[in-house]
């Protein structure tokens, strides 16, 4: 089988900038006044080579690109740590109704009661499901909510005169965004090693707690897919020294209806609407990260907050202790509507079933994979588990990276690899709740055959993937010599505006 070119441009689809001719775009409206009638001359950038393509060419271009990519609509997507669950289409249908889709953000509150009810109901539902006093729907991503939570913590301590609290404790089983958010807020980070069972120990955390403790950020279940059994004692110890507990909700898909961060002793938390409920994933597009707080922190939530007086709902901006808005307007309202649709469609019992099936599927795959790969923490997991290619690497030179690339040839998205950092040659697998037993069996069989190939003929895996549109990319070169911007060729792009 020939190795396909590893650069997508060589493989047949030119960039949109390289297509088209000047004047080709379909013009449905008469040409208006020149741009400098609206904008000051210095902000207009004539040098930008904007593409000028016909509508049909644009449709074909993006349809071709969509056919060259992979997503959950095409196949199994066992990415660990960032839950990539299926988004039921009904949730998109709900937000497409004109009453939501065409509502202007400046509609007065009394004419937007339906939309405000969506925000209010979602806020109340999340508070109940996760045991918090209140949520803000303002942040537009999980890490954005993390930042908001730490700004709240900072303001809370400042107002209490406890300005010496500058340490944030982050276990080594946490998500990479946690130390980043802490650093953004000017905290210094203490990394806490997990024990041999992959948990944070109470004795271990006590060693780093003190009058300078601000926040302890934990994920539960953690990024090994393991439940932190000592969470109540850990929370008590942090509270004893006056610190706050932060729950990273990245793994909340494992616990819905079974336990609540509020009951575990957390004061602050975030959710990723795409991980736990339903909205499109990643791609840098519009996201949604609800931020939850316990009763003593509700006054600090970002503005606006939807409040209810008698039967009227309104957006409340008059909150003197608030950290202020994290986003323009009312954040990504359509995502709030999708999330509420998901909650209503499942109901309390349905959400418990979501988490139960996510955990069951992960354990089913874990036990099967343990027959041919190491699973360093051999005990029932929650919604995800880690396997390791350490022995394969030592004995056959085949790394987790090679296994992941070979999975692409079998029509699967690769799992997360090399995370968490505490497991060498790590593969982190999360099937989610919507996959059938047949899909999981087929995935396990594919991985098993790849591991058998690795032992018999390791060389065969080093060039994988061979059947995908883009072959093995040179990640090292991409990182060492990044080339992030298209530039017109020497003779100038055909579409370049003079």
């Amino acid at each position: 089988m020939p190795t396909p070119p590893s650069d997508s441009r060589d493989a047949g689809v030119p960039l949109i900038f390289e297509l088209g001719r000047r004047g080709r775009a379909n013009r449905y409206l008469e040409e208006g006044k020149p741009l400098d009638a609206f904008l000051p001359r210095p902000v207009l950038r004539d040098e930008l080579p904007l593409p000028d393509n016909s509508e049909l060419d644009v449709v074909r271009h993006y349809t071709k690109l969509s056919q060259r990519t992979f997503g959950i609509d095409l196949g199994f997507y066992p990415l660990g740590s960032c839950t990539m669950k299926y988004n039921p289409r009904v949730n998109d249908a709900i937000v497409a109704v004109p009453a939501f889709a065409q509502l202007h953000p400046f509609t007065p509150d009394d004419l937007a009661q339906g939309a405000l009810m969506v925000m209010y109901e979602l806020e109340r539902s999340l508070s109940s499901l996760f045991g918090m006093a209140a949520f803000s729907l303002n942040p537009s991503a999980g890490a954005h909510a993390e930042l908001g939570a730490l700004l709240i913590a900072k303001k809370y301590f400042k107002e209490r005169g406890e300005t010496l609290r500058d340490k944030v404790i982050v276990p080594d089983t946490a998500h990479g965004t946690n130390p980043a958010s802490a650093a953004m807020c000017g905290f210094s980070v203490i990394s806490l090693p997990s024990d041999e069972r992959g948990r944070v120990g109470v004795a271990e955390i006590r060693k780093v707690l003190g009058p300078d403790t601000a926040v302890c950020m934990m994920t539960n279940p953690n990024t090994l897919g393991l439940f932190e059994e000592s969470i109540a004692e850990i929370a008590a110890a942090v509270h004893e020294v006056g610190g706050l507990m932060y729950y990273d909700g990245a793994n909340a898909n494992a616990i819905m209806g079974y336990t609540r961060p509020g009951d575990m002793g957390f004061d602050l938390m975030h959710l990723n609407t795409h991980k736990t409920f339903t909205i499109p994933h990643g791609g840098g597009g519009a996201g949604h990260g609800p931020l939850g707080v316990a009763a003593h922190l509700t006054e600090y939530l970002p503005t606006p907050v939807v409040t209810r007086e008698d039967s009227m709902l309104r957006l409340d901006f008059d909150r003197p202790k608030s950290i202020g808005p994290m986003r323009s307007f009312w954040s990504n309202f359509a995502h709030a509507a999708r999330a509420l649709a998901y909650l209503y469609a499942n109901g309390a019992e349905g959400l418990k079933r979501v988490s139960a099936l996510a955990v069951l599927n992960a354990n089913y795959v874990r036990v099967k994979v343990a027959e041919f790969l190491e699973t360093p923490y051999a005990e029932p997991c929650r919604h995800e588990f880690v396997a390791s290619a350490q022995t394969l690497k030592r004995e056959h030179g085949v790394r987790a990276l090679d296994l992941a690339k070979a999975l692409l040839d079998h029509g699967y998205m690769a799992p997360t690899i090399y995370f968490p950092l505490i497991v060498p040659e790590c593969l982190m697998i999360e099937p989610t709740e919507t996959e059938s037993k047949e899909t999981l069996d087929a995935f396990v069989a594919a991985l098993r055959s790849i591991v058998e190939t690795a032992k018999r003929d390791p060389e065969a895996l080093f060039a994988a993937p061979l059947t995908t549109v883009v072959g093995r990319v040179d990640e090292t070169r991409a990182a060492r010599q990044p080339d992030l911007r298209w530039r017109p060729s020497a003779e100038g792009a055909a579409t370049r505006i003079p």
Partner: protein
Amino acid sequence: MAQPEDLLFSKEHEWVKLDGDTATIGITDYAQNALGDIVYVELPKVGATIKQFSPVGVIESVKAVSDLFTPLSGEVLAINDALENDPAAVNREPYGGGWLLKLRVADPNEAKTLLPPADYEKIATE
């Protein structure tokens, strides 16, 4: 592989070569192998005073971003500028051209807390 005999090691996989009161510091062959292809190295400023076992820089590979810890305290005398354009030298020659920084050692006694080659070998082959 066996560790070079004239070096001392930290548990965090750094090596130290002592020459009078000057120490040259790098990461071990085991460390570069575990990190994979290194794409970026961030080092402290020349003249900075650094404290033993504290994070003083960052090593970024295609797999992960890791803190660099200094195995000894002292004043930074030099950093390996060549790594800016050629971070792969740490992979190619971890004990040679891939050195990271040179220190004026503040406290010679700290070297006693580091590991001789045979002891480090045990950690690296665990």
